[in-house]
């Protein structure tokens, strides 16, 4: 008898979901610890601007990542520049940049000619993890390996700079470069994750596993491992549940992560 695990589209979805869940959680550990939780949402909205720009240029929705990526990274670096100048708080800078990008996206969508490719706005907003193509899976894999390697090489410095940028700088850590790298990586991961859970829900993918792990973990290393496990397992369980219940997969994944967060509250470290 054929099970859901025999279906190629489900296999791709499960792999993509687990990888993206783990990646978002890994990035989320630093994003949440730095009090930048809102940035996931902001960059997802910025990604919408990139997607709209791609559509205006005639790029198909399947290849949209390659336009949205540089666009969102630019926005992330812009936020980083404003943050480093110290003139605005992180939430203000993120709010301004994401609102402008989203508005730009709406404007660009309106400028498209009517004979261009049709866009299902629901797909953009809420993702389509079951529609992940083999090409998408390769993109997810490449981004996953590159992000993991970069974070592994910079982990100890990034953690130090997150705890106290001044003390880290005194120890020779290149704090500014790491700040920009983290923001750029967040943008890359967000753009890839948008495909799976959509613009509306992607920030939960970044925030919930990290916030849950932070409640339980006693060291930054353990928090990271726990967050990655929660992101990967939560994504897998959510996807399986959505298949059997025949409901929206992205929303079910996030609700599953929300349930894990609830459990975390119960086991919160005293």
């Amino acid at each position, binding site marked *: 008898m054929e099970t859901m695990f025999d279906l190629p589209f489900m296999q791709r979805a499960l792999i993509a979901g687990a990888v993206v869940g783990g990646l978002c959680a890994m990035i989320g550990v630093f994003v949440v*610890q*730095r009090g930048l939780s809102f940035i996931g949402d902001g960059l997802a909205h910025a990604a919408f601007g990139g997607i709209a720009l791609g559509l205006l240029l005639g790029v198909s929705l399947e290849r949209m990542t390659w336009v949205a990526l540089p666009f969102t990274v630019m926005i992330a670096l812009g936020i980083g520049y404003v943050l480093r100048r110290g003139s605005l708080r992180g939430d203000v800078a993120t709010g301004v940049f994401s609102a402008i990008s989203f508005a730009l996206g709406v404007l660009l969508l309106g400028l498209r000619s009517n004979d261009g490719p049709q866009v299902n706005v629901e797909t953009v907003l809420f993702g389509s993890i079951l529609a992940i193509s083999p090409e998408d899976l390769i993109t997810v894999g490449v981004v996953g390996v590159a992000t993991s390697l970069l974070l592994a090489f910079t982990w100890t*410095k990034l953690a*130090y700079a997150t705890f106290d940028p*001044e*003390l880290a700088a005194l120890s020779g850590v290149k704090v500014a470069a790491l700040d920009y790298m983290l923001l750029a990586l967040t943008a890359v991961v967000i753009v890839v994750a948008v495909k799976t859970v959509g613009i509306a829900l992607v920030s939960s993918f970044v925030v919930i596993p990290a916030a849950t792990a932070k409640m339980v973990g006693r*060291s930054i290393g353990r928090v990271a491992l726990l967050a990655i496990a929660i992101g990967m397992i939560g994504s897998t369980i959510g996807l399986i549940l959505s298949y059997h219940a025949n409901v929206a997969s992205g929303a079910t994944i996030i609700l599953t992560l929300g349930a894990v967060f609830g459990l975390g509250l119960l086991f919160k470290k005293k």
Partner: protein
Amino acid sequence: MSAAHADPEGLPQGHFSLPDPSLPRVLEVEGLTVDVPGRRLLDDVSFWVPKGEFVCLCGPNGAGKSTFLKTVLGLMAPTSGSIRILGKPAQKALRDVGYVPQRKTSDMTFPARSIDLIVASMRGSWPLRIREEERVRASEILRHVGGEKLLEKQIARLSGGETQRVFLARALVNKPSLVILDEPTAGVDVKGRAEFLDLLAEISASDELAAILVTHNLAAVARCAERVVYLDAGRVSAWGLPSELLGQASLSAISAVAGGDHAAHSHHHPLPDEE
């Protein structure tokens, strides 16, 4: 030495008794000027700290104390002038400097233990695993500051006084020649402040370790300072012995900064609040 006097408002002015110029200098600042667009934060600041001397850096809010520390630590670029640590350009000698920041600068919700902070200072990066020799060294330095029980304690659970004890340990762990303390007891309760002051007094008694303490706390100045540098509007307005600067006219000027607590001049009185 140059003439010294008090200005009509009681602020200490000029150079009083200066350190013996023949002593080896741990920190030497010459003509240090720092500008930001539209404003001069430090204006031709010059003084030196000999080996083992405990200097209190005082002055009103906005006098340039934090700018001075950040420039010495390489976190701000000087417009002109030079900073030498142990005779070397400051940027090449930061390993010889220990730094105790104000409590508000670090993320105390960070999931970590005291030992992680201390080992991070030893390595220059955050530890994922701690080696036995690092544990022994961290334990030793915490014992030295009276915090041996804090080794495995989560930093989020440290009291204000314990936090500064741990930060002092991390500043001292690399055996620096100079330790810089930026209002370390601000926001710490009275008991914690008194205990921390005991530790500072120990540092002051050391002939090896030099220190610069930025403080508004007159009790700290009276008890620990071997020399006082008074900054005002970005300039060194006075440099001399505490007994000279804590004299009649000057005392009222400095204590006004600390909230007017003249009583703190005595070691046995309650410590005045810092800003």
